[in-house]
């Protein structure tokens, strides 16, 4: 019988992160953009060079305008997100542990979750006025549903044997909630935080574009009206940095709180 070496058939389909390649690609993209602008291939009026956007950002930072808008946006974001997150975690836990809450809450949350919350802003303005309350409520609503669903799903994923174990030692229901359910659902809660923070950022921008004088959304819209694409892109950069900062904060929280995984 003829002998031959068995060829290697494994490998692949296991992507790994190559160090520095991502940053390099980003820098190349910026360099290409800068090059295209400097070569006069596009109108600087429609697409300002990255260096121009950076200068505009620095000017806005020096004048204090940047922090003024940032403070207004962060205030709405933190308040709206916190309200939505706290009530979402409470609702998710209730759906996760109580038959009555599950029977009432799950169909309700599932039906309302897909509704784009920005569509409710006009109604919220009617109810709460054009001021801060309607914007905060829009963000809170947008945050509530994904966190409620993720928390309930986090509770569902806790192995039942852990609850039965706690019951076998006669732990009180409140202790089981605090020592088994809540920490067990934490991966779900944090996943909900990650999803809802992106949704909150979108809703913040949209709400500020519809009815605000200050904030990053208002800055972007006003820049568009004045055809100041450098200011418009500065606002977009600010939103991107804000999104990255929120993502990094949640990532750090996950590493700290879920180190046991």
């Amino acid at each position, binding site marked *: 019988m003829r002998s031959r070496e068995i060829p290697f058939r494994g490998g692949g389909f296991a992507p790994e992160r190559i160090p520095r390649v991502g940053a390099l690609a980003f820098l190349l993209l910026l360099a290409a953009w800068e090059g295209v602008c400097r070569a006069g291939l596009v109108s600087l009026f429609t697409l300002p060079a990255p260096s121009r956007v950076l200068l505009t950002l620095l000017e806005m930072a020096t004048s204090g305008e940047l922090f003024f808008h940032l403070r207004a946006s962060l205030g709405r974001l933190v308040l709206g997100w916190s309200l939505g997150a706290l009530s979402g975690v409470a609702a998710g836990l209730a759906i996760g542990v109580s038959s009555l809450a599950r029977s009432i809450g799950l169909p309700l949350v599932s039906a309302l979750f897909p509704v784009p919350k920005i569509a409710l802003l006009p109604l919220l303005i009617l109810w709460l006025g054009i001021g801060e309350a309607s914007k905060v409520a829009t963000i809170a609503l947008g945050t509530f549903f994904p966190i409620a669903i993720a928390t309930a799903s986090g509770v569902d994923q806790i192995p039942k*044997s852990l609850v*039965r*174990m706690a*019951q*076998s030692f*006669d732990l009180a229901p409140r202790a089981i909630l605090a020592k088994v359910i809540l920490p067990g659902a934490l991966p779900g809660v944090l996943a909900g935080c990650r999803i809802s923070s992106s949704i909150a950022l979108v809703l913040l921008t949209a709400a500020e574009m519809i009815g605000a004088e200050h904030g990053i959304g208002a800055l972007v819209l006003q820049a568009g009206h004045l055809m100041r694409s450098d200011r418009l892109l500065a606002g977009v950069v600010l939103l991107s940095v804000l999104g990255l900062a929120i993502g990094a904060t949640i990532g750090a929280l996950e590493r700290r709180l879920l180190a*046991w995984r």
Partner: protein
Amino acid sequence: MRLRIEALAHAYDGLAALGPLDLVVEPGERLAVIGPSGCGKSTLLGLVGGLLRPSRGRVLLEGEPPPGSLVPVAYVFQDFALLPWRTVEANVALPLEDRLGAAERRERVRAALARTRLSDFARAHPRQLSGGMRQRVGIARALVVEPGVLLLDEPLSALDAQTRELLLDEVLTLTRGATLVWVTHHLEEAVRVADRVVLLSARPGRIRTILPVPIPEAERGRPAALAELARLRLELWELLREDAQRAETALVVSGDALA
């Protein structure tokens, strides 16, 4: 403590899973429960441990718990049921929280970890431990409450054969004096650990026979006893074989009795 099981029966959604059965487990006795897959072994343990509500009958606990006992009936789970976010010592301390002061709690945990040879791993998390060590944590957690009755639901089934062999003698030594109900599907394990082996029939599980193991525990590892243990194992297998064959080709009704 004595366990008295009276006309105990359980059904899942109207489908009879267990019983009715009557049984008395004497104080300090070690009772192994075996039977074909799906016969209700884990259901029986869930009912005895108060984790399932019986459809009929009752389970009585008679006698005084040992001095210092915090929970009269403790449970050892097949999948260990350790909280993955807690360290070994925090897992063992769980049943003591809200019951004992910090100093007494620390002392009990220290003693339980020493008994189960886990002292060097007190700060480790379950994911860092081997299967055998995880089950030792589960056993330490059950022993720390000084139970009068210990219920073990296939405690060695999730372990490889060598670890099972190593842990079996250790568990017997650790649980000496406690009333034990040990559910298993390993016939060798049943005759090694038990004073009596209860054989359940196919679903709904009823007592088919109760087989005494008339060999003192200290002699069971010796060559002289091996032939007698093998004979008992064979006797059980002859009784079990038909039911086991039927169960192997039947549809599963309830995957996890405690789910």
